[in-house]
């Protein structure tokens, strides 16, 4: 049995296929194809949630995505808990478990409901006016309490085991919305053969045809026609039909984001299916067929469980075969609710009365309702609903006042009219226009290549809708100017509407009895508990812009984003202000249309795909050696190579000593490398670097500095000249991409007359630095064709030849101060050559060293690291690199910037060395330096420590620092105030080891 309220032979579900599920621990049975909402209603459950502020009991307002009340937590397992799921959208699967939210201890008895009693205090914006005294209580008391009370569901607390995927797609015509309008438009477009994508948020296409029993198209029931049309479309190669797919964002140039819910409706999704799939569609034309959303009536206690939109009740009946009550009342201001009363009556449900605000409406539905014997009351209002956890009655009064009458009901179906869904149109930056006659905003001025059709365009009536949509679909296909992809089926004809339901206007704002001078709770925004009087109060308090009203009352800011509440709120504000609606304006429609799972937006970019990881050719070797890696940009670099029992400190000490006593191998592959080739290569280098290059001999290297135009150091590196027209440029690891971009920028746009080209060769060459007194002994046996003598291959030179039988660019250079080489080999040979060098090195006691030892060794020599010892405010002079600036050069990038007033002023921060008075004390990088440690806070700081290490080779700590007027302070004592005491330091030169540089040839 799938519920006492299931009506035999009603609806479209196969009653045989049952599914078990639970809600708040209670077991129920539903049917496959149900939503959680329809399945609960079938079991007579109306109470499903509690509201945000007053914790009022709530049921189902709608049968769709606009639902503000029926939010639940879906629990698949411990790691798959999803908060704030709309029960009206969640499809039922066997075993589904759902819990209600925002209540304690239970849904039926919620302590938080005390807020409802105190609600006169909790008027709009009350929190801005209180909780200010005593001051400290905000942090310790008020805010924690407010935070605890707020929120709806509970965040997951474990990483999500599900995965998400994404797809970029292109099409000629994208049709959003799969009701009669969308289907007609898609048919027309598809039949021309162009590429069409049709998407609808529901599991089944048809839109309002799902409940409109009066619709007949092409001789069939409307829903059957929709099903047939979708089958035809699905069979066409040029058409992609996406159900359960919500277009959530309409971005620039017809770029639309959609989310497809792939497996949340499945009992056992399996490992291969993503939970959701993000579609990012670029369409030549977009057809918006997003329909309309029914509005509720604003009257006292209109939020009681059992009170819902009339169209929703019809959907529950005609789609799911569920009666929302046994004795229902209807409250309406338009025709469409009559159809609900008629359908329910025909299904055997008692309709206690229809209450219609209008004075003397006429029309076929009214006649039919009357003919069925339903009591109809014109010119009357429902002034309040009775009952608490479930509606029990409605009290009716003539709309201009008079005697009250209370009618017992167990459900109230309401309709104030339909609001066109202009969300996506508005997101496309189109301007809506207010139609004063129909009291609705409809698409006005278009900003993109799209068109609205049907209810979202304010088009009433099925026949007019299908005509409009079909024509628009055909035109969109034509305008897309695309080739025919070959529709497989024969060209069809325009669908013919044989019968449809009548439509009429409705009303906006509060109904009689809900103000302006009452204190009743007539809800405009259900979830956020915004009442008509809250909106009036906001206006009285000076909120004249609708944006202020919205923000002050929070109307329309709940998870439904005001789909049912915005127009009512606007109308009440306008009425209170005494202004016409268009003058008050409409709040902005912002993406997403409905909430979108973070996972879907992130899709593949999780875990290892969050960001590319870059690894060098020798990475596997270092890993096997137990290296610890550090992240440098996207690269993983070997940081140090601890031997058993070693911590970082002892490993680094050992590595540093080994390099200076024997030799070390270091993977320098991550340094950026650019090959600069062409007859004007040297001219180009002259412009991009501060140094002179024209006279550098082929086969020689030079340390180069690159500035930005503002004169600050941008990057540095050793550059080798391979041939008159060919330079091998190196950059910092992190700087490689931006240096390349910087060079290309100047080459292409400032110096396009130069015949020179740049190619990134960072990844072509693996670079193995071999440094130390034994470095030549290690390399020489493996090298062919290069004279390794100091005369033939002096410091700062480069040769091409072979190593281990493979090509090499062999640099004699040193970032350690020792005799050193950098062996460049094609990357795929990198690890094998490393292993060969390693084997040679073992004969001499060489070690592998990582980036940390590299940092220490270079600091011992006073070699800077751009980005560590410099930031973006350091000039070559500041860094003590004036010698690298070509004084005779007429131009280079940065030549003017570095001559600016402040950049040549006295007292600038300059790089110097620091020695702590206690050699054992290692300064902290980033520590600040002062002249007078006794001054009060705020202290005058004159610099900071940029690099600081324990140097085993020096037997003491060493540091580099940027200090104001630093070079004039050499020999001075300065102070580094730390939390646990002041450290005395002496300002020194930057070289701590081998000041004469003799070891370069040692």
């Amino acid at each position, binding site marked *: 049995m799938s519920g006492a309220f299931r009506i035999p032979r009603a609806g479209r579900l196969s009653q045989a296929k049952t599914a078990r599920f639970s809600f708040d621990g209670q077991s129920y049975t539903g049917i496959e194809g149900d939503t959680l909402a329809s399945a609960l209603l079938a079991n007579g459950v109306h109470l499903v949630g509690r509201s945000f502020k007053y914790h009022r009991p709530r049921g189902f307002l709608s049968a769709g995505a606009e639902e503000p009340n029926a939010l639940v937590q879906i629990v698949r397992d411990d790691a798959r808990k999803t908060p704030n799921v709309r029960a009206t959208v969640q499809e039922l699967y066997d075993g589904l478990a759902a819990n209600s939210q925002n209540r304690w201890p239970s849904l039926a008895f919620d302590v938080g409901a005390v807020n409802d009693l105190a609600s006169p205090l909790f008027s709009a914006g009350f929190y801005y006016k209180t909780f200010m005294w005593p001051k400290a209580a905000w942090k310790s008391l008020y805010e924690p309490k407010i935070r605890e009370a707020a929120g709806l569901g509970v965040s997951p607390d474990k990483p999500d085991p599900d*995965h998400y995927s*994404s797809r*970029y797609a292109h099409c000629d015509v994208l049709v959003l919305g799969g009701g009669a309008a969308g289907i007609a438009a898609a048919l027309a477009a598809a039949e021309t053969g162009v590429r069409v994508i049709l998407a609808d948020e529901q599991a089944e296409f048809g839109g309002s045809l799902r409940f409109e029993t009066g619709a007949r198209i092409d001789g069939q029931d409307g829903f059957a026609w929709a099903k047939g049309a979708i089958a035809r479309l699905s069979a066409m190669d040029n058409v992609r039909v996406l159900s359960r797919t919500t277009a959530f964002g309409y971005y620039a140039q017809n770029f639309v984001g959609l989310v497809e819910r792939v497996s949340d409706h499945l009992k056992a999704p399996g490992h291969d299916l993503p939970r959701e799939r993000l579609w990012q569609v670029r369409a030549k034309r977009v057809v918006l067929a997003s329909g309309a959303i029914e509005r509720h009536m604003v009257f006292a206690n209109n939020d009681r469980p059992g009170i819902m939109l009339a169209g929703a009740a019809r959907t529950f009946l005609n789609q799911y075969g569920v009666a929302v009550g046994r004795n229902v009342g209807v409250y309406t201001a338009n025709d469409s609710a009559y159809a609900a009363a008629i359908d329910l009556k025909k299904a055997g449900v008692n309709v206690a009365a229809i209450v219609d605000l209008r004075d003397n409406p006429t029309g076929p539905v009214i006649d039919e309702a009357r003919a069925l014997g339903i009591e109809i009351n014109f010119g009357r209002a429902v002034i309040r609903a009775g009952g608490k956890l479930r509606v029990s009655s409605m009290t009716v009064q003539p709309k201009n006042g008079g005697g009250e009458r209370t009618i017992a009901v167990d459900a109230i179906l309401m309709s104030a009219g339909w609001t066109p869904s202009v969300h996506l149109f508005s997101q496309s930056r189109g301007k809506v226009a207010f139609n004063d006659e129909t009291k609705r905003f409809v698409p006005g001025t278009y900003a993109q290549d799209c068109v609205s059709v049907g209810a979202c365009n304010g088009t009433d009536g099925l026949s007019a809708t299908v005509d409009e949509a079909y024509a628009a679909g055909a035109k969109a296909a034509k305008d897309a100017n695309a080739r025919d992809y070959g529709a497989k089926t024969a060209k069809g004809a325009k669908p013919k509407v044989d019968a449809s339901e009548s439509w009429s206007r409705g009303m906006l704002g509060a109904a009689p009895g809900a103000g302006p001078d009452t204190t009743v709770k007539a809800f405009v925004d259900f979830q956020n508990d915004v009442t008509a009087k809250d909106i009036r109060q906001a206006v009285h308090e000076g909120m004249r812009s609708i944006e202020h009203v919205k923000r002050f009352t929070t109307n329309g800011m709940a998870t439904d984003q005001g789909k049912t509440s915005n127009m009512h709120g606007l109308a009440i504000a306008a009425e209170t202000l005494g202004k016409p609606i268009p003058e008050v304006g409409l709040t902005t429609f912002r993406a997403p249309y409905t909430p979108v799972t973070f996972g879907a937006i992130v899709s*593949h970019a999780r875990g290892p795909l969050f960001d*590319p990881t870059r690894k060098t050719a020798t990475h596997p070797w270092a890993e096997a050696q137990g290296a610890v890696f550090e992240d440098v940009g996207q690269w993983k670099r070997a940081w140090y190579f601890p031997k058993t029992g070693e911590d970082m400190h002892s490993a680094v000490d050992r590595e540093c000593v080994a390099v200076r006593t024997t030799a070390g191998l270091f993977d320098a592959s991550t340094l950026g490398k650019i090959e600069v080739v062409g007859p004007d290569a040297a001219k180009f280098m002259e412009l991009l670097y501060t140094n002179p290059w024209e006279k550098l001999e082929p086969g020689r290297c030079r340390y180069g500095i690159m500035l930005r135009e503002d004169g600050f150091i941008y990057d540095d590196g050793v550059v080798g000249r391979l041939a008159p027209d060919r330079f091998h440029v190196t950059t910092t690891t992190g700087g490689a991409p931006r240096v390349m971009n910087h060079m290309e920028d100047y080459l292409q746009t400032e110096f396009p007359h130069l015949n020179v080209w740049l190619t990134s060769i960072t990844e072509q*060459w693996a670079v193995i630095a071999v440094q130390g007194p034994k470095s030549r002994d290690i390399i020489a046996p493996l090298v062919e064709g290069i004279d390794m003598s100091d005369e033939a291959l002096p410091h700062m030179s480069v040769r091409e030849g072979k190593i281990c*039988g*493979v090509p090499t660019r062999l640099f004699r250079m040193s970032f350690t101060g020792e005799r050193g080489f950098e062996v460049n080999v094609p990357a*795929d*040979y990198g690890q094998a050559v490393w292993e060969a060098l390693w084997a040679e090195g073992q004969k001499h006691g060489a070690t592998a060293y990582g980036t940390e030892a590299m940092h220490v060794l270079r600091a011992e020599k006073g070699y800077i690291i751009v980005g560590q010892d410099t930031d973006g405010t350091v000039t070559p002079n500041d860094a003590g690199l004036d010698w690298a600036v070509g004084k005779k050069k007429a131009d280079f990038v940065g030549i003017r910037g570095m001559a600016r007033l402040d950049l040549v002023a006295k007292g600038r921060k300059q790089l110097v060395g620091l020695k702590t008075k206690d050699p054992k004390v290692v300064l902290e990088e980033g520590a600040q330096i002062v002249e007078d440690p006794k001054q009060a806070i705020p202290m005058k700081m004159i610099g900071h420590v940029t690099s600081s290490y324990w140097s085993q080779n020096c037997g003491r700590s060493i540091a580099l620092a940027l200090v104001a007027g630093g070079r004039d302070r050499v020999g001075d004592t300065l102070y580094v105030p730390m939390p646990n005491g002041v450290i005395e330091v002496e300002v020194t030169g930057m070289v701590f080891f081998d000041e004469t540089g003799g070891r370069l040839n040692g």
Partner: protein
Amino acid sequence: MAKAAAKKTAPVASPSVERRPALAGRSTSATGVKVEVLPPAERISLRAPEASAAALSKALGVPLPKKPKTSASKAGRTALWLGPDEWLVIDEAGNDPLADCAKVSALHSAVGISHRNIAISVAGPAAEAAINSGCPQDLSLEAFPVGAASRTILGKAEIVLLRTAADAFRVECWRSFSDYVFTFLSEGARDAAG
């Protein structure tokens, strides 16, 4: 042009160490699509003004394409248009395009990048969808026909894409992050099959 340098970097007949390409041998299959790392190839980045194109085409034995997003292929050698003065030349036949260019005196820059890139084949009816999991270009046959070539984006990585058949692509990327590209394509393939 750049003869001296080029000559010296010509490949060696018998290296004493083996070449270890990144991801060698990796492959994965899903319904409708196979993702597989291709064997090593010789490659150059070729830059030249229009005036040099004829001489370079002749030396390379493959006409350098002049139209954006196109490629030309002959005898195991493919030239991909990457920019108005830039081609990626891939040789899968074991010949050295760098050496061929070294003979050309017309203005150009040829730089060896054989080891910079690796290539991944994505093939099967769902290949297009697999790549579109992270590549924002329109890969329909109309917009990206067989032979079309383009540098573009896959997720957060740069790739070069070449359509080798209606249902097959060659994806080239730099070696250091090839694992990212391969993994991304594998995920894309899994979803394309679903």
